C-alpha cells in the first residue's frame, strides 16, 4: 500500500519535472547479474542502480525477450521464516542508489524461451514508474555464485553500464 502511494507520488513528481528529466536518463546500472538455475526454474536478477538526478526515480519492473515474465520481488526473513512478496516499485533516491541483491529486492525471471547458461549476457529492459526504460546487460552467473563476480573475471558488458561510480 505504502509503496503504491509512494510510486504514484514519485510518478507525479517526475511528470511535474517535465519531459527532460526521465528516470532512465539519470539512472546508471552496475553489478547486473542473473543467478542461473537448472532447467526452466525461475532465476533471480540483481543490479545496483545509481541515480545522478535531483529527483528520486522508481524502478517498477523489467521485461525481456528471453523470459516470458519478469516480476519485481522482495525477500524477507522474519520470525525465522523466509518469504517472498511482489513489490510495486523500488525507489532510487536522488543522488543515491538502490541495490537489488540476494535476500532483498530482486527481479524474478520466469519461463526462459531458450536455455540461459553461465557466461551468457542477457539484456533486460528496466522500467521506471515514469514510463522511461533502461536497457541493461546482465551477466549470467552459476547457481552457486555469490555476486556479479567482477572480482574474478570482469564481464566485458559491465564497463559500458558503469562509467560513473562517483566514489560510492
Amino acid at each position: 500500500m505504502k509503496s503504491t502511494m509512494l510510486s504514484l507520488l514519485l510518478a507525479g513528481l517526475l511528470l511535474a519535472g517535465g519531459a527532460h528529466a526521465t528516470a532512465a536518463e539519470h539512472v546508471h546500472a552496475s553489478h547486473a547479474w542473473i543467478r542461473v538455475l537448472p532447467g526452466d526454474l525461475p532465476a533471480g536478477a540483481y543490479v545496483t542502480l545509481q541515480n545522478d538526478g535531483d529527483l528520486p526515480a522508481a524502478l517498477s519492473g523489467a521485461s525481456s525477450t528471453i523470459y516470458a515474465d519478469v516480476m519485481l520481488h522482495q525477500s524477507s526473513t522474519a520470525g525465522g521464516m523466509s518469504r517472498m512478496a511482489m513489490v510495486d516499485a523500488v525507489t532510487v533516491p536522488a543522488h543515491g542508489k538502490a541495490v537489488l541483491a540476494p535476500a532483498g529486492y530482486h527481479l524474478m525471471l520466469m519461463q526462459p524461451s531458450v536455455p540461459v547458461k553461465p557466461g551468457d549476457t542477457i539484456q533486460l529492459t528496466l522500467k521506471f514508474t515514469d514510463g522511461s526504460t533502461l536497457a541493461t546487460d546482465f551477466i549470467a552467473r552459476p547457481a552457486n555464485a555469490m555476486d556479479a563476480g567482477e572480482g574474478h573475471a570482469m564481464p566485458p558488458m559491465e564497463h559500458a553500464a558503469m562509467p560513473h561510480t562517483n566514489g560510492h
Partner: protein
Amino acid sequence: MKLCRAFLPALLLVAGLLLAGCQHDEPLPLRLTNISGHMPDLDFKLTDDLGKPVTGADYRGKVALLYFGYTHCPDVCPLTLAQLHVVMQRLGPLADGARILFVSVDPARDTPAIMHAYVNAFDPRAVGLTGEARAIEALSKRYRSAFSREPGSADGNYEVSHSSAIYVFDRDGRARVLATPSASQDDLVHDLHLLLDTGTHR
C-alpha cells in the same frame, strides 16, 4: 578360562576409556546456537535425488546440515545453498564428511530429477530430499520448523514461505547447532570443524 580372567580387567579398562571418550563430558565449544539435547535426532523417511528411499540412519557417519526450501525459490534458497557451498569449500577435504540435506517443502513440483539438477548446481555434497507431503510435514514439525504455501497467481505459480534455519547434526545423528541466516559464516565453519574433527564416531 585363565586367559579370560587375565583379559577382563584390561577389557574393562578399554571399555571404560571408550565410554569416557564417547560421553563428551566436556561440551564442545560450539559458537552457534547450541541445540544439543533440545532437538530430536535426525530421523525421516524420504526419497533422495536419485529416487532412492532414504532414512535419517542412512546419513549416520556424516555431519548433516538440514535446510528446508524449494527449487522454484529464486533468491533465498539459492543464496543459502551458495553460502553452504562456500562453507564446504572452506572445510577442504574435511567436507567429504558432511552432507547438505536440502529438503523440499514443495513436493508437488520438486521431483527427484529436478532436485538432483538443482542441488548439484550448488555442491557435490548436497543431497536433495523430497517425498510425501505428510513425511515432509513430519520432519518439519520434528524440528519445530514450519512452511506454508502462499496463494498462487493466475498462471498457477505460487511461492512457499519456509523456515530459514539450518540444523546441524553430528555423525551420530544428534542435533548440535542451529544456524540462522544472520549467523556468521566463520562460526559455521568453526562449529563444523569441531563436529568433523572430534571423535564422535559411530
